[in-house]
């Protein structure tokens, strides 16, 4: 029983980071219809930048700076590579964002080398654990789950109750009508890149102590995040959180039942099955129906 719970906790921990990557996918997808395959790189950049910065400043400040820096990189990417494209085809966007992810990864390799980095635990050390009814949980898990929950709640408030959030939703609901309301949809697109870069970077900082991060962590996270986004129904962030937990826990159990090497096979298999069987996702909604356009 305890072992079972232990697996579930491990699953939730991984699920949290998948959820964060998936939310990043969804934010950009919703405002632009673009699937940004460089999303995982934002996570990597956040974790790596914070790791470097923490030598010079306290950890919380380093994390904030890393998030801001990644956010600026997100904005630059959109302004330099995406903004000037006039109605690009989906295929072209996929190639561009994959290209970008390679570019970012190679740059990261130059800056940080091949080494694996980890931020220190926010509280305690790697051996500290909280005993919760016989299940040992690292305090970092509480940080990860806690901060991610706060991010999800804040995003909900942002999109539903602020004018800027409403503008972004309007842009996602009907681009042309949004422009006819005087909303600069171009700026909304830039902003969506900034927002998902920031969220990705924060996610990278949170999980870095648990999962370690190296220059090439991004693409793996992107695949997991994409699987989760598809599983939940592209564009639906609440469903993505649920889907992320499902995937995290499934993966966790797969380690128990199968050799550890098969862990990643689980998510790829799920992604393929979903894409073949129900491309609108488990919690298929109207937004996902637009996927059919492709």
């Amino acid at each position: 029983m305890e072992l079972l719970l232990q697996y579930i906790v491990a699953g939730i921990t991984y699920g949290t980071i998948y959820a964060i990557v998936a939310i990043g996918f969804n934010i950009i997808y919703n405002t632009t219809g673009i699937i940004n395959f460089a999303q995982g790189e934002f996570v990597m950049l956040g974790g790596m930048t914070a790791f470097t910065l923490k030598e010079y400043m306290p950890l919380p400040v380093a994390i904030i700076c890393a998030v801001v820096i990644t956010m600026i990189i997100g904005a630059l990417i959109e302004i330099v590579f995406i903004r000037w494209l006039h109605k690009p085809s989906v295929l072209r966007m996929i190639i561009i964002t994959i290209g970008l992810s390679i570019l970012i990864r190679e740059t990261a390799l130059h800056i940080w080398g091949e080494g694996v980095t980890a931020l220190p635990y926010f509280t305690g050390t790697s051996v500290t654990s909280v005993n919760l009814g016989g299940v040992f949980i690292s305090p970092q898990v509480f940080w990860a789950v806690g901060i991610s929950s706060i991010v999800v709640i804040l995003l909900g408030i942002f999109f539903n109750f602020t004018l800027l959030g409403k503008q972004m939703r309007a842009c996602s609901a009907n681009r042309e009508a949004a422009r006819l309301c005087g909303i600069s949809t171009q700026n909304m697109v830039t902003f969506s890149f900034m927002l998902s870069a920031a969220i990705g970077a924060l996610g990278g900082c949170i999980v870095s102590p648990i999962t370690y991060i190296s220059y090439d962590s991004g693409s793996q996270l992107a695949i997991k995040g994409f699987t989760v986004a598809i599983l939940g129904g592209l564009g639906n962030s609440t469903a993505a959180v649920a889907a992320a937990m499902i995937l995290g826990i499934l993966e966790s159990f797969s380690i128990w039942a199968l050799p550890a090497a098969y862990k990643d096979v689980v998510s790829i298999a799920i992604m393929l099955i979903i894409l073949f069987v129900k491309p609108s996702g488990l919690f298929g909604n109207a937004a996902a129906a637009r996927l059919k356009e492709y």
Partner: protein
Amino acid sequence: MLKIDNLVSGYDNLKVIQNVSIKVNPGEIVSIIGANGAGKTTLLKTITGILKPVSGSIFFDGQDISSTKTEKIVHLGCSLVPEGRQVFAPMTVRENLILGGYVQYKRKLGSDVLPYLDRIYKLFPRLLERETQFAGSLSGGEQQMLAIGRAMMARPKLVMMDEPSMGLAPLVIKEIFSIVRMLRDEGATILLVEQNAKAALRLADRGYVLETGKVILEGSSKELLENDDVKCAYLGKTKKDT
């Protein structure tokens, strides 16, 4: 208010609008009538900057807007109620209207948005009843009211409407048209595009007849309503009747 000269516009190589010149004076209702595919929507899209003109000029309020961005044109006070309503379906009626007032926030007149929202709700009590409902769940007529309300929230000097009567029951059309008249009485300037020629011309002061991208006739509504060609082509009367 609006002055278009020798406008040529279209999609890629297809020049849908050919040498169109149109004028709208302040306080007028001007109607553009024409059959399917005449280029009415294309014309309005070009005025609002969604399509870029190939040549010709568009002056709004004395300012050349032929290469101005849509957002800026709306900011200047020229709003479009697009063909097929185009409401923000997954957002509530209230959110749709607030977003319509977005340019007011940009003009630093944000405090006027909520009072004017009440004004719109008085004009369209049906929208108030459905305030928290998703726009996508409204009936066609209600969505049209919402689209008009949303455009009005921007407090435009000129409102352009693209076939507000499309797909609506006669009774609802009457209601919509009476609201258009009400808006005019309050001092709005309106450019109304319609296939429903009779109703549009009865409402308007002047009219233009657009055919395959060219203005083939223009004049006061009265003249157009009595014109034999118009009667025959757009008012559903045969030559014998007239």
